[in-house]
């Protein structure tokens, strides 16, 4: 078997397609690296500036008093740009990179504009970017996901379309089978040979790409990032073997190599180029979009309800009860607002999730999702970021309540100036927001897709085996 593999590799190494493949992959990977080196430092700088600014807000508010912190909250949250952005862009330019800390609402002012009734902050989720100021052509991304998903799969077909058909045409297949080699050995030998000869130029291109990126001192890759890169590289191999198996399958069934290539190309075009977009369009027209107005309509009655309830409590004689009514009004209002925003986001997310699930029939989309998942970009990553901010928000609110409880002078009525601790707190004691990525979580979300991709490979491989065993030479 090893002989067959070696022969295949030698055959391929000297061929024109090997040279062309190497040049093509190198050009793409170098462009990818150069672009990343040019853009990533800027991205990181913007992120750092934004984070510093929101940290300043937090410090200022904490320095002022616990109440100010409780009323205005921390500064906005920003999504940490992934250092593996070059692996998958994941539509990052369309996704928002922040979760905003909404200004406290003002319910009532007096004639001079002084705020009489001022609520507390709540989280708000900005819409996806619309890109409607850009008059240029659609921006395309040369990221690893594109190079692997489109180019490498095409190359895999290019290397395998004549694996059996070509040898049959030349008559060498009969010669080989005349020796006492079992057919499955021939198949596995061919499979490994093709896979390895594609891996050589790909690994070379990846090496150059990573060399360029890791030697530049503007971009830093952590150990975890290298681990993720390793996973992405193995994903690329898995995906390539899918197309190698497909190529072998068709090549074994078809008599002429030209016909074999044609079938392969048409299959490729349908599954890789058209399937994702057509399915996405179909899926997105399934569920109707809910307009902003409709959501807004759901929100208004709730607020009126709260206002009525507060008016009752306001007229109470006891100072304590009045304050409590106010506090309840503020916190409930903030909670309702937050829940309303969250529901809106959830509705939209579920739409996208449905569309993404349907497009998962195409292996190219599966790969795209997997690479996005492991590179820490794209839609799932955005949701993770949103979750991180929600978790932090809970943490911060607990911290505020705990600190207030520790102050004996405070009345422990949260959200109201008169009822809360007015002492400044040390900014160091306030928990900080950290936007982290969790590799094991990524594995969990990717598990299903990974399984599906592996299943695809296995089905195609066994198909190729059956086809080759039964074929007459």
């Amino acid at each position, binding site marked *: 078997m090893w002989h067959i593999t070696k022969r295949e590799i030698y055959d391929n190494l000297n061929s024109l*397609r090997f040279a062309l493949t190497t040049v093509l992959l190198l050009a793409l990977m170098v462009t990818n690296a150069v672009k990343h080196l040019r853009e990533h430092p800027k991205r990181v700088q913007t992120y750092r500036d934004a984070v510093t600014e929101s940290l300043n807000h937090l410090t200022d508010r904490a320095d002022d008093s616990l109440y100010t912190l409780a009323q205005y909250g921390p500064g906005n949250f920003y999504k940490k740009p992934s250092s593996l952005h070059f692996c998958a862009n994941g539509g990052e330019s369309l996704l928002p990179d922040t979760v905003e800390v909404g200004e406290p609402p003002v319910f009532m002012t007096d004639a001079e504009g002084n705020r009489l009734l001022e609520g507390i902050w709540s989280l708000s989720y900005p819409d996806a970017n619309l890109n409607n100021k850009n008059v240029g052509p659609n921006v395309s*991304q040369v990221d690893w996901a594109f190079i692997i998903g489109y180019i490498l799969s095409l190359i895999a077909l290019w290397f395998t379309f004549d694996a059996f058909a070509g040898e049959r045409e030349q008559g060498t297949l009969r010669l080989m089978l005349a020796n006492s080699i079992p057919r499955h050995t021939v198949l596995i030998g061919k499979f490994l040979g093709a896979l390895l000869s594609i891996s050589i130029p790909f690994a070379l291109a990846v090496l150059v790409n990573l060399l360029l990126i890791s030697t530049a001192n503007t971009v830093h890759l952590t150990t975890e990032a290298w681990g993720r890169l390793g996973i992405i590289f193995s994903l690329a191999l898995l995906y390539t073997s899918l197309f190698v198996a497909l190529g072998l399958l068709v090549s074994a069934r078809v008599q002429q190599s030209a016909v074999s290539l*044609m079938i392969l190309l048409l299959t490729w075009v349908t599954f890789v180029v058209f399937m994702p977009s*057509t399915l*996405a369009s179909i899926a997105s027209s399934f569920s109707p*979009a809910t307009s902003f107005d409709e959501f807004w309509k759901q929100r208004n009655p709730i607020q009126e309800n709260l206002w009525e309830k507060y008016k009752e409590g306001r007229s109470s004689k006891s100072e304590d009860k009045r304050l409590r009514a106010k506090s309840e009004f503020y916190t409930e209002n903030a909670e309702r607002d937050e829940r309303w925003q969250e529901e809106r986001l959830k509705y939209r997310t579920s739409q996208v999730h449905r569309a993404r699930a349907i*497009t998962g029939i195409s292996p190219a989309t599966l790969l795209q999702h997997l690479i996005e998942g492991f590179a820490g970009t794209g839609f799932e990553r955005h949701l993770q970021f949103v979750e991180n901010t929600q978790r932090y928000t809970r943490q911060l609110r607990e911290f505020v309540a705990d600190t207030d409880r520790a102050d004996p002078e405070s009345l422990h009525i949260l959200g109201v100036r008169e009822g809360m601790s007015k002492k400044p707190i040390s900014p160091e004691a306030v928990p900080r927001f950290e936007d982290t990525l969790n590799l094991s979580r990524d594995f969990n979300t990717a598990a299903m897709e990974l399984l599906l991709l592996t299943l695809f490979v296995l089905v195609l491989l066994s198909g190729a085996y059956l086809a080759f065993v039964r074929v007459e030479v």
Partner: protein
Amino acid sequence: MITTLIGRELLNNLMTFRFAAALLITLLLVVANTVVLIQHYEQRLESYNTSVQTHHKEIQEKQTYSAGEVEVDRPPNPLSIFNVGLDKRLGNEIWIAHNNVPTLWEARMNASDNPYLNILSSIDIIFIFEVVLSLMALLFAYDALAGEREQGTLRLVLTHPVRRGHILLAKYISAMLCLLVPLLMSLLLAMLLLTTTVSISLSADDFGRIGGIVLTSIAYLSVFYLIGLLISAVTQRTGTALMLAMFIWGALVLVYPNLILAAIRSSDIPQAKAVSAFNQIKQVWDEFDRERKQYLATDAFPGEDPTFNINGMGFFYEHFPENRLTLLYLYNSMMTFGELDEKFEREVPHAQNYFQFLIPSTIKTAERAWLIRKQALEDTLVRKANTKRTLLKFSPVGMYDAATQAWAGTDLKGVRDFFDAVRQYRLTVIDYFYSKNAFASRKWFAADEGTADWSTLPAFSFKRSGVEINAKRALPDLLLLLTMNLFLFMIIFLVFIKSEV
């Protein structure tokens, strides 16, 4: 003789597996996508219609003239089903006010859709053609000469007194005839679907535009067939030809358009030109502000508060919003009250005088700023975008895309036609204000003695430019494609004449 050759070639091509496969795939893809695309178009049309109604209602409800920011909607282009271009992406809702000459950069998106869905890719009919037709043309061409050479039939044909040019021509004509079948049949089906949809009404001009798209598609198809033929003429074996054809297809269709856009530097930092233009615009408005303050200072009712201490139920604001990226800078002010208290009656004439001075002056300043802004936007944003487009045209795919966008009217120029119409309409609205003497009237800011009258305000209407304008815009790229055809054919002819069989 040539007819015999063509007949033979036709038979050869039509009875093949590749022909059947090509037909099937194109038909399947085009029909499936057209159905979805029509559905999306209908959704957009519906949201456009609701939006127009809402905006109409909103303006009628405005009680004072100063509150009347007329909003205008951009209708979706039915030909965006063929090539969506910028039709879906650029803003489709824009406000018209006296203080700014509107451009497409101020346009907003009608917010009834889920913007997160944009991260999923979408396609149109031309994209299918771009990918599938080019692939088919190459698959039909790669063995046209190399295959016959391999089988020895080429030598056989040449033993007859046939001119080599005729052989080439026969091959070209017959293959093109075969390739036209999937193209025309799928287009026919798409047209059938389009015309049977009630919400889409195509005008005679639209059929002309679609005709232009078909013509461009044929030229595009022919370019790729000729590329394949050239490969076939220079290679000895079909295997090599096929491999090379595949490589070139991948390079031209997949790699180049992506690579070139990634390779060129795109910076968000405004260029020096944009910065200086912005400062000029700001200066113009600063001058305006000085005049305004001077007026207030010399007014019989001194003081800098432009609301003249008038207060009541309603609201007022004034500020200078800016956006450095799109060179937006303007004076925005509004004062609108439902009812006025008796005690302010004394100040009302002052306010009326003030607005009679302020609004025409704002209009004049907006026009002055627009002259600077127009040029600067052209020099920075539009030119940058056009450079990218030009670079894309080094691949036939880019030419094809640009030409079909121009035919469909979804290119930048087509979308800008709408904004030209919007600017024209703004003048109409201002004329309407003048005819109502709105600026000097009490109704500009207060609704207590009669509300603003919007009943005779001319409605906005936009008609896409005529087919001849589309043709003019598409012609350069179409000509490029045709020249490329001619050039390729000449090279093939030369190569083939000189080659040994």
